[in-house]
């Protein structure tokens, strides 16, 4: 049995993140925000906690349940965005979305291991799995900024 097609999607780096998730858990720092997002069509869930300090992502963790694509994407995302400014993180979110939809993307941004998810472009039904954690991050960044603005 040849698994050539499946190998293109489920690269070993993806399966490694699925099996050994990085930055797994929740931040219990009172300065952090946690957002949840789910994919109503399949039930995948992602919770992203993050802390912004001096305009930069100082800490990020995730928890969730779902397929290898959504969960590994979350793990790879946390590695790629730690230490970035909020603006850089937004750029990376856009970049990742373009990548998994098979569109041109900026090469000077570093997606790290998440680059391995480019194979998803060949599986349109799975693009939403890959982008779910990134959408949660986007929401988290907005909420974190709002919260900081509200503080005296």
């Amino acid at each position, binding site marked *: 049995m040849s698994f050539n097609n499946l190998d293109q999607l489920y690269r*070993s780096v993806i399966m490694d993140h699925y099996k050994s998730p990085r930055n797994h858990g929740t931040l219990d720092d009172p300065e952090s925000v946690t957002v949840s997002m789910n994919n109503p069509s399949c039930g995948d*869930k992602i919770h992203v906690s993050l802390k912004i300090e001096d305009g930069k992502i100082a800490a990020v963790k995730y928890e969730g349940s779902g397929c290898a694509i959504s969960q590994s994407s979350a793990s790879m995302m946390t590695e790629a965005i730690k230490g970035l400014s909020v603006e850089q993180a937004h750029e990376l979110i856009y970049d990742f979305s373009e990548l998994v939809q098979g569109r041109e993307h900026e090469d000077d941004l570093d997606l790290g291991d998440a680059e391995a998810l480019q194979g998803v472009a060949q599986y349109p039904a799975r693009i939403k799995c890959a982008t779910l954690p990134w959408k949660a991050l986007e929401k988290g960044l907005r909420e974190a900024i709002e919260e900081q603005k509200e503080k005296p």
Partner: protein
Amino acid sequence: MDIQAIRADFPILNQQVNGHPLVYLDNAATSQKPKAVIDTLVDYYNNYNSNVHRGVHTLGTVATNRYEEAREKIRHFIHAKSTKEIIYTRGTTDSLNMIAYSYGRARLGQGDEIVISPMEHHANLIPWQQVAQATGATLKYFPMQPDGTLDLDDVQKTITDRTKIVSCTHVSNVLGTVNPVKAIAKIAHDKGAIMVVDGAQSTPHQPIDVQDLDCDFFAFSSHKMIGPTGIGVLYGKEALLEAMEPMETGGEMIDEVGLFHATWADLPWKLEAGTPHIAGAIGLGAAIDYLSAIGMEAIHEQEKKLSDAAYKMLSEIKGVTVYGPAARAGLVSFNIDGIHPHDVSTALDMEGIAVRAGHHCAQPLMKQLACESTVRASFYFYNSMEEIEYLANGIKHAKEFFGHVF
């Protein structure tokens, strides 16, 4: 049953997907259409497209006749007393909402109860949540046995003198459980409640006799029974439909209209506002002709063979959990240890096998099964035993692949 001859009637089945012959096992989501049904739609639009019950011109008469002939075919197919009891809707969801809105909201109040089962599709769950919220009625659930069946003693205990509506699926779209809706209807009636049956997963696969079931309402969809999408049926006992106010008003459903008041047309048209899905209704009639020519008993037998074989084959694969009772309708929901249903589904898709992965519009049931989602293979009479073997092999390959990369 000559499966190969039947398959030749379904053009879509003869194709390669990802380099493999298509194995379509997502029939509980929607079924494929035979050429006879497709040709009926084309014939309508090519040759006699006209609005119904309006003009006096020739094409309008042809369209109206065919549209009403289809209603008679449906009546006969489910053994209703009269075509007045056959209301065209957009599908099961629309039918159930119509009951909830026009019957439920109008008649329920504080202290009344609605009872449903834990294995309802969202279409037979959320409308009742809405009715309960709007009227102050209480929504209750039958308990479910660990194997995914209902126990009639539990049913007896759950339905009380306060229960006004019992609504239950005939066949579970997740577990394949066949519920004893006739017995439940009897219990409901003894307590003075009405019985609603969601027939979306039963009508395509077995003979239906609404008078024998003695249900008060019965809902089903065309697209799951080789007919077009966008059309379905609400069956209701005439007296109940007669007493119901229409959920939608407008064209087609009126008798006389004045500046400030209007009166309604007779049944069934009273409950069919606006230009209906004419081609769809006629197409559903063609689907019923096709199914009836094969025979619903024969279809049921064929699917039972497929389902029994699939249940046995999948249960024997190490690491595979099959959900629901052994005695089941033509579908199998399962999970493979350590592999998410979406990943299983992608692996099967690579071999041309179409299955459904997800919560199957039954999130509360998933919670009860203690899983977030399952893979579901669902069969129809055009599926072959070879396809079931193909599925079992596909599952073994998926296990091998993910076992290897993990």
